[in-house]
């Protein structure tokens, strides 16, 4: 099969990712000539349609960018609007936000581990096919996922596009008794999550490493989720308000996408492996213990092992949720008033797939004048393409079917959320 001078691998519709993307790999004379992760998800123009809306609307409206991680959008939007208006929320409200976010991490990570990613390692087309042989495993995943959804449903009203989140806090906050009622359920899910780490740690991982700079929020004393400063493995740190000074998006000639890079430094990646590498010491003792038992060291530079890191973060999110519930005291008021003022506001939080940045300009009349959103998948796109390029180069002996599947898996390592990235990526439609 090496007789051919040109070899093309095309996956026109990537499966088991959120949104619509395609992969294109071209090999010429035994060398990788071109690798593209194409985004053909239709644009929805959120930054444009937000203008002229009330300053209280971005949490609900931007949630609609992504049905998989709506809480991430709501939290980054709240942070940015509150920053613009100079309001900080009650510590008990901040606690509830972190708990809500733990729910989304549990739900989204478990969805990815069991339904989207594990089938690759075990040779199944999908989780439903896997369930025909290993129903017990898929049931365990669905049960853990449901525990995350139960947190989001209690605090948010529903699992997808929660209704109870507002700028300044919540419409209604739960009683202690309502939260405590979740505790048993979360305990059981925590046991399942520990089993999940042990399960995925036993998968067969290709020997593959990258040297991308890694970027995540970081807060001394706790594993950053809903707040923090930006930090990188290259030693750079900066305040979220300076995000746009440090992160540059550039257009590359062949590509349909804007690629993000760190000013003066280059390509970087975000997401679970970046968080783990930067913030491992702030995981709970249990999460650290299971991470070590799963063979994770101080950092994680094999993208295939991201599934193990996601499993460890799921353990952490459940552990942390239980801790937050145990020390919860309802706030005096469910929300702070957030009167508008003419200002710009910046917010960033750790979506399950990595840092999600929002910036809004607000006019004196309380209407949005400008909006900018930088989602995680677009930040990872250059890293994904680089992984593919190097990965394919080392596996040209595989036949097309196997190589294509392995490339798909390499993309799924990053849990790409194409629905998210699209609203700002450039794209051409090519649906051959």
């Amino acid at each position, binding site marked *: 099969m090496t007789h051919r001078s040109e070899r093309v691998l095309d996956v026109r519709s990537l499966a088991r990712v959120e949104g619509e993307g395609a992969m294109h790999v071209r090999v010429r004379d035994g060398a990788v000539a071109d690798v593209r992760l194409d985004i053909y998800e239709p644009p929805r123009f959120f930054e444009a*349609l937000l203008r002229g809306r009330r300053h209280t609307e971005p949490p609900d*409206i931007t949630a609609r960018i992504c049905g998989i991680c709506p809480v991430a959008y709501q939290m980054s939007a709240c942070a940015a609007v509150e920053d613009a208006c100079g309001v900080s929320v009650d510590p008990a409200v901040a606690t509830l936000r972190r708990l809500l976010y733990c729910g989304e991490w549990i739900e989204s990570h478990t969805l990815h581990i069991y339904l989207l990613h594990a089938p690759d390692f075990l040779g199944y087309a999908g989780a439903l096919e896997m369930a025909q042989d290993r129903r017990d495993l898929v049931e365990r995943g669905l049960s853990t996922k449901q525990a995350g959804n139960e947190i989001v449903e209690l605090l948010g009203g529903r699992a997808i596009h929660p209704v109870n989140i507002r700028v300044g806090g919540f419409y209604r906050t739960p009683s202690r008794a309502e939260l405590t009622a979740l505790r048993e359920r979360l305990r059981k899910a925590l046991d399942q999550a520990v089993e999940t780490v042990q399960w995925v740690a036993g998968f067969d991982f290709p020997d593959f490493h990258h040297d991308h700079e890694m970027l995540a929020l970081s807060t001394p004393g706790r594993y950053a989720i809903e707040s923090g400063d930006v930090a990188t493995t290259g030693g750079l740190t900066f305040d979220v308000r300076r995000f746009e000074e440090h992160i540059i998006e550039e257009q590359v000639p062949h590509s349909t996408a804007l690629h993000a890079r760190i000013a003066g430094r280059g390509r970087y990646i975000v997401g679970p492996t970046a968080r783990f590498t930067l913030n491992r010491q702030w995981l709970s003792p249990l999460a650290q213990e299971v991470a070590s038992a799963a063979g994770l060291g101080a950092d994680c530079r094999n993208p295939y092992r991201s599934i193990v890191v996601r499993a460890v973060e799921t353990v952490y999110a459940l552990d942390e949720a239980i801790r937050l519930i145990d020390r919860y005291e309802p706030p005096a008021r469910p929300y702070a008033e957030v009167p508008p003022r003419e200002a710009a506001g910046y917010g960033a939080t750790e979506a399950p797939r990595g840092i999600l940045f929002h910036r809004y300009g607000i006019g004196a009349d309380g209407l949005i004048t400008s909006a900018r959103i930088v989602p995680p998948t677009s930040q990872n796109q250059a890293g994904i393409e680089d992984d593919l390029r190097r990965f394919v180069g080392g596996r040209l002996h595989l036949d097309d079917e196997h190589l294509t*599947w392995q490339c798909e898996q390499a993309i799924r390592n990053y849990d790409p959320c194409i629905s998210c990235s699209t609203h700002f990526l450039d794209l051409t439609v090519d649906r051959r």
Partner: protein
Amino acid sequence: MTTLAVWKFASCDGCQLSLLDCEDELLAVAGRVEIAHFLEATRAVEPGPYDVSLVEGSITTPEDAERIRHVREMSRVLVTLGACATAGGVQALRNFADIDEFRSVVYARPDYVSTLATSTPIAAHVDVDYELHGCPIDRRQLLDLITSLLLGRRPDLPGHSVCFECKRRGSVCVVVAHGTPCLGPVTRAGCGAICPAYQRGCFGCFGPAETPNAAAQAGLLRATGMAEDDVVRAYRTYNAADPTFIELSRVMAGPAPGAGPGGTGQEET
């Protein structure tokens, strides 16, 4: 076995995720149907025709306008899922704006972006057999729909307002008790009246109920002190392109209900 296909157009993936969010029922459903095309769940794809196609998202590109016709041809029953597919979604706010200006705001190279000037519902392009409303859809409604199609009975899809569900849930009316603006009286039931249970007014994500009382609703919103432009924004969000919501957004507030004879509140329609 009944073959099921799931399709995505311009959307957030949330409505099809509702199927994977049926944690207790997913494997049972998967045992009763053959999932022939569902890219969010499996890379295995079976060729059509399909007995049932579930369609998420709105039509915003020329290519998608073509693709939905192809999906229709391959599908015995076509069901639209959610506000994007049934009413154009929040991205239909472009319908009220200049699309070239929108494009230049978001994209550095607007000429690369292939898009239509409007976001339109699936029914504007092909025949639709059933519509599930909501942003997102309610997963119990989705399960009921799939069950009904398997049993060969008509799905029970309510056309009445959220108020009925709110009363049944036992929630205190947020308008009466707190003067909170609420679109519940003109919004289609199906969500279970979540927002009022969280002390928030309904924001209409399920789109219009059948035969809404435009004048009474305008008066009700006016009585809560809501400004006219906020009323317009409220209707023009997740079901922005829905003709009934467009009409409701144009009904200027008359006197509050019970304020005696006077304007009908419909002078702008």
